[in-house]
């Protein structure tokens, strides 16, 4: 039975939204700013009124107040109470539930240990770093043992490293607690790392719900395809393991060596911004470097998309306008391409 169901939910920009979120699933909603992601969290938590129905464990909760929905909600602003210490912030929900003092203290301590914030117990929120605040807010949400956790951009406004570190820890905690989680972000890479399934929202509509891999290999419409960056999908005709964690794949005239640990690769998705393009041969070994002919040049808002044919394959590269202006690429001219190995996605056969 799905743990959360949204049936014909209408609120603000969201129009007739239907979603089913499985029990213990980490369900990530991605989309641009104003797509209606936070509105859906507000609907599930009951902090806003709405049309339609929300069912939790198959039971309608539309008439259940936000106090009793059993939902932990991490607001984007975090909303840590500035007048309470870290310990008191985390204990707030426990005291509200009438948990006995020593039991509440034990719970607060165990949560602080889990989130590695035990040393912050007596500090006030203004004394904490961005990452520490997020951990405290998360511990506060988890304290009353909610059935569902709603996270609104939990790693926003953190630097890349801290965000990645927090995301890994968060994933670890969520898997350990086996709590149904709805996670909102605008960053598809973040969604990929953490999600069991992803829903893409655009202008209040759910465009696609699928596994992270399907997002790249099977975008269901132009909107999804546009959001994931129209990746280059390469069908592999051959694949062989070179060494542990290293595989050579062949697709017509393209032969690549990739870091990969698993069975045979059937398809590869390469984001256009992960393809380096130049009018001169780039330095370095001739690994994953190809020479082709420019087939098309398309100017987008702030980037330029260049199509380069390499044998039977055509690779699309995307680069900022400023970078494009520094090189001289023209239709029909030779171009050099390097495939970066940062964000490749694979389909195994």
């Amino acid at each position, binding site marked *: 039975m799905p743990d959360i169901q949204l049936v014909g939910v209408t609120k603000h920009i969201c129009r007739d939204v239907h979603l089913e979120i499985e029990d213990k699933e980490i369900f990530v909603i991605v989309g641009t700013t104003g797509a209606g992601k936070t509105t859906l969290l507000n609907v599930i938590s009951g902090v806003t009124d709405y049309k339609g129905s929300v069912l939790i464990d198959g039971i309608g909760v539309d008439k259940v107040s*936000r*106090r009793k929905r059993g939902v932990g909600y991490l607001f984007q602003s975090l*909303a840590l*109470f500035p*007048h309470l210490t870290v310990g008191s912030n985390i204990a707030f*929900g426990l005291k*509200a539930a009438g948990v006995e003092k020593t039991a509440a203290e034990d719970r607060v301590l165990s949560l602080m240990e889990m989130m590695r914030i035990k040393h912050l117990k007596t500090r*006030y929120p*203004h004394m904490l770093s961005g990452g520490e605040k997020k951990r405290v807010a998360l511990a506060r949400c988890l304290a009353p043992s909610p059935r569902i956790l709603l996270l609104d951009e939990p790693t926003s406004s953190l630097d890349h490293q801290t965000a990645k570190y927090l995301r890994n820890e968060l994933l670890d905690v969520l898997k350990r607690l086996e709590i149904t989680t709805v996670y909102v972000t605008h960053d598809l890479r973040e969604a990929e790392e953490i999600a069991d399934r992803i829903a893409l929202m655009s202008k209040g509509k759910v465009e696609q719900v699928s596994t992270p891999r399907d997002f790249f290999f099977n975008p269901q419409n132009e909107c999804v395809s546009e959001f994931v960056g129209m990746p280059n999908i390469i069908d592999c005709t051959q694949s062989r393991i070179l060494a542990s964690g290293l595989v050579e794949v062949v697709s017509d005239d393209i032969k690549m060596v990739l870091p990969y640990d698993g069975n045979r690769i059937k398809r590869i998705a390469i984001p256009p911004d992960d393809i380096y393009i130049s009018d001169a041969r780039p330095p370095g070994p001739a690994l994953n470097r190809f020479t082709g002919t420019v087939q098309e040049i398309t100017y987008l808002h702030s980037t330029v998309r260049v199509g380069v044919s390499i044998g039977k394959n055509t690779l699309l590269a995307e680069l900022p306008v400023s970078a494009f202006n520094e090189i001289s690429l023209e239709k029909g001219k030779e171009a050099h391409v390097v495939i970066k190995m940062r964000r490749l996605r694979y389909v195994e056969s």
Partner: protein
Amino acid sequence: MKKTKPLESIWGMLPVLVFITLWEAVGRFKLFSGQFFLPPFSAVLAEFYHLTANGVLGKNFASSLVRVLVGLCSGSAAGIFVGVVMGWRKVINQALNPIISLLYPIPALGWLPLLMLWIGINEMLPITIIFICSFFPVVYNTATGIRNVDREYILAAETLGASNMRILFKVVIPLALPNIFTGLRLEAGMSWRVLVAAEMVAIPTGIGALLMQAESLVRVDIIMVCLIVLSVMCLLFEKIFALAEKRMVGRWSAHA
């Protein structure tokens, strides 16, 4: 809070010392004509000692202090209560806001003639004036503070399962404290100013009454003693509330 360096303290005291020295010199050496209207500072100090020793100052000061404390405490308590209710419940705010807005701009002393007729010349008169003086600004500041509490704090508390009363007392009122203290601090000093005016006009005891008696006897030294006492009390009351505010909200309010 930043500690004041000793040099800064001396620098701040310098104008006061210069002023007292000039005052003493002008008074003692009779530098201007009509000098009996300006006794030297030392004479004022001597009179302060004399009034304290014979109990006149103490008796009048105690009368004024009791009036201020009773009026300020009751006015502030009522103001905080009404302000909290108005800030917390929109419907009550809509009902009370027009009448509060109409009465708030009336200067506290403007009520004096009416109150003299309504309650007569007795202890209740200055207390009522101080009550009015402190009630309206505290209502206004408290209601504003309560209304301005970020709604996300309330929503966060609700999703954590807190009841309305718990949210009010554990989240909203503490977060509104800086605003509430602004009202209290302003009125703490103001209550002394209003009290003296009331005592000068209508009440035969208290610092204000002592001022009026001194004026009729052309005792400039006593007038000056009273003015110094009033100045110190205004400052002291404001400082007490500032200190209380610092203790209660200083650890977090600047960063809220």
